[in-house]
């Protein structure tokens, strides 16, 4: 097999396969990113907007998501939902929209020879929505059904507990689906407020990936999106960090029969305030995620967890360092104790080896190669996420170089500042006997 291994090693690129990425900011402030990949004759067009639940108040909780639904309704080019659907079918569009705490993404994929029409279609939907009151009225019921569906999910109680405990000053900023009362009373005027503030070119990125060329996309972006007027109205960069824990807390959450989950959560570094710590956090998280490592062995192989992770989630306003996973029902307390003891141990520098950290960095380089598989995912998941969270694409571009600089001292520093002497919230989902 060694001959074959050698031959195959030659097939494996040594540099990250992200050479097809180009980015530019056009005159009105819109960031345009292009990822060229000619595997299939399709193109994905995505608009990422820097908004989400984190921009809401108790009186507007759920409106970022409501707005996302209205994107798929009438606009200045297609008068109503029926025309909208008809146009999508004409163009062979597969579409979706996702609202999360800190971003809203709209995206569709279509045959690459219809890219120009697709760009027009996207522009009209993002920049000229009508918010027809009748359409809003109908969509209200649809969203309420989405809310009802969420409440039947086995982990619903856990999600709600996390919002309340991790974001005590502003739980609504982590509640994307929103409040049924707000959904029930939303009107076109509040949609317009959202539009004026967040749906402006300098607060958005246009990402096109697939069977396209940067020149073609940049030309179309200028021509089609260039007329979108900048307002500078977004307050996204001036929002306050909302994750915050004052003291160690343990929360027991009633769960369904047969399901148990234990997690311990800390407030992590906000990327805009402590960028260096985010690199150390990711190297550390990758180190911890190795199944051959002590963390997995103690908690899963030899312990009550069925799976476990310890990682940092990069965010601006709700960054968290989370540990935990599903456990064998009835062993929640034992699992929580073991997990907390292991977290104590990992604050010691002796927990880490230089070799382990080097493996982690190598894994991160491989991860980038593996993530370059499908153009749509590159646009929607990778580029959109990093642009929103970091505020530009430079963070993503320099990411591997930055993590290659992370050493044990950086990891220990990150842990000392965000985990080892910080308050945490422990959540135990399971059946509580009377």
């Amino acid at each position, binding site marked *: 097999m060694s001959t074959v291994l050698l031959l*195959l090693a030659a097939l*494996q690129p040594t540099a990250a396969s992200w050479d097809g990425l180009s980015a530019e900011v056009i005159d009105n402030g819109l960031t345009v990113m292009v990822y060229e990949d000619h595997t299939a004759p399709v193109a994905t067009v995505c608009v990422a907007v820097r908004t989400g639940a984190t921009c809401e108040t108790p009186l507007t909780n759920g409106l970022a998501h409501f707005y996302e639904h209205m994107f798929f309704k009438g606009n200045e080019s297609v008068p109503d939902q029926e025309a909208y659907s008809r146009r999508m079918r004409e163009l*062979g569009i597969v579409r979706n929209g996702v609202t999360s705490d800190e971003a809203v993404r709209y995206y569709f994929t279509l045959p690459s020879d219809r890219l120009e029409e697709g760009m027009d279609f996207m522009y009209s939907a993002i920049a000229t929505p009508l918010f027809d009151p009748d359409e809003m009225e109908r969509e209200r019921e*649809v969203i309420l059904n989405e809310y009802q569906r969420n409440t039947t999910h*086995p982990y619903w109680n856990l999600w709600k507990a996390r919002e309340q405990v991790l974001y005590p000053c502003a739980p609504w900023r982590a509640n994307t689906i929103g409040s049924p009362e707000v959904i029930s009373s939303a009107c076109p005027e509040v949609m317009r407020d959202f539009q004026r503030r967040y749906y402006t070119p300098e607060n958005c990125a246009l990402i096109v990936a697939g069977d396209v060329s940067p020149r073609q996309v940049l030309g179309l972006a200028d021509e089609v999106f260039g007329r979108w007027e900048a307002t500078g109205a977004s307050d996204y960069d001036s929002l306050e960090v909302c994750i915050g824990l004052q003291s160690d807390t343990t929360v027991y959450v009633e769960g369904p029969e047969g399901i148990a989950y234990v997690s311990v959560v800390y407030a992590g570094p906000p990327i805009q305030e402590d960028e260096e710590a985010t690199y150390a956090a990711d190297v550390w998280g990758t180190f911890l995620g190795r199944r*051959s490592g002590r963390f997995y062995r103690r908690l899963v192989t030899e312990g009550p967890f*069925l799976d476990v992770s310890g990682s940092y989630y990069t965010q601006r306003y709700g960054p968290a360092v989370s540990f935990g996973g599903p456990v064998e029902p009835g062993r929640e307390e034992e699992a929580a104790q073991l997990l907390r003891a292991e977290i104590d141990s990992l604050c010691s520098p002796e927990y880490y080896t230089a070799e382990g950290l080097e493996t982690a960095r190598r894994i991160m380089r491989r991860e980038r190669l593996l993530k370059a598989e499908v153009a749509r995912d590159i646009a929607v998941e990778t580029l959109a996420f990093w642009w929103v969270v970091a505020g530009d694409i430079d963070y993503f571009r320099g990411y591997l170089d930055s993590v290659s600089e992370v050493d044990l001292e950086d990891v220990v520093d990150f842990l000392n500042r965000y985990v080892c002497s910080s308050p945490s919230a422990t959540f135990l989902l399971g059946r509580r006997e009377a």
Partner: protein
Amino acid sequence: MRAIGLLIMLTAASLAGPVTEMELSNGIRVISRKLETGSVEGISLFIEGGSRALDEETQGLEAFALESALMGGGEYTGPVLRQVTDTTLAEVTGTYNYDYSRIHVRCLAGDLPLLLDVLSQCLSDPEMEPEAVEKVRQSMLSELAETEVDPDRAVWHVCNRAFLDRHPYILKPDGVPETVAAFTADRARDHLEDRMLAGNLLITHAGSTPDSLLLPILEDAFGAIPRGGGDLPEAPPFRLRSDTLVTEERDMETAYAVVKFEAPPAGHPDRPAFMAGMNALSEVLWDILRTESNLTYATYAGATFYPRNWGYMYVSSPRPQEACSLMAAVFRETAAEGFDPDLLRGSVETYRTGRGMSRASRDMQCWLLGVGEVSGDGWRRTYYLVDSLAALKPADVRRALRDWSGPCAWGVIASPAQLEDLEGPWPLR
């Protein structure tokens, strides 16, 4: 390594674009799709049998056996295996079905020989370390509990109680708590020995590794698997004779509903037209139930890719009586009147885009190539289905929906008040 001369190239690439067919020395078939971009490789091992090769007492055994085997085997004991998957970042995942199980490996090209060696040793000489086996059992039980608790997933099983009654597909590929709790490592090992025969196996590949390198690796990994197998009896027709409604009560604001009815089996000439009809119906349900009637957040329709198939429609709604009766009415009307030709054409184009999106996904490519073969449809029919759909006339689609609108089984999970209002089953013909 066996001589490469034993390997036979069966199909030239010109016949089917960049897809080639090959055979290992023991007769295991290999279908490979070349993807020149990216450095990710995908390999799927399809094991024909699935839950249909099991019985009421052993349902779930194949999933249990394979998941346990994938915890370590041969020289790749648990700790060594975890080291390998850590350093390669490879994913080895199992999915379990009525007629087959599939183990899929996703890795970078240079790691392919290593990962296939791992897979081969795990399956042929599973370690079955007691604590690891117990962990697999607990994970399966936890997953079963989650499925049961989540009405969005459970509603499919509720519907199956009627639709799959007295059919082999009623056996659950992931098992039931009683069977999973009772499996032993020895039983799992015996099952693997029974099923890991060349005649039961099919390998599909998607990636850039050329056949000249791929074949020796596969031969090394799987060429020594004994011949035999390939004797799975034909799946019988479904036995549903009249419209049926099965309900389950849960205290929730929204109800969940699914309806299933028999669809053309694999290889049947009506299959493309039926698939096109169900795809288009999905669009119509969205337009009418969601956009016009605001009855639901989620509704769709589709058809399965098994040897024996069904069409299905799904809806969640706080008004299940209205939603279910409207869904059935939409079906009856389209089966009788047909679709607007523009809508039908558009739904085929959307389907084509979806297929284009999946072209770079090694996982999807491996699935597409394999599922047609194991269902008996042949990989070409499944892989090039979109071309068949584009060639259909609206009248073909209408006729297929009308001819296959037989007895249907409904499953509904709803609150007591919602159940009180239900007037189903709602006929499709």
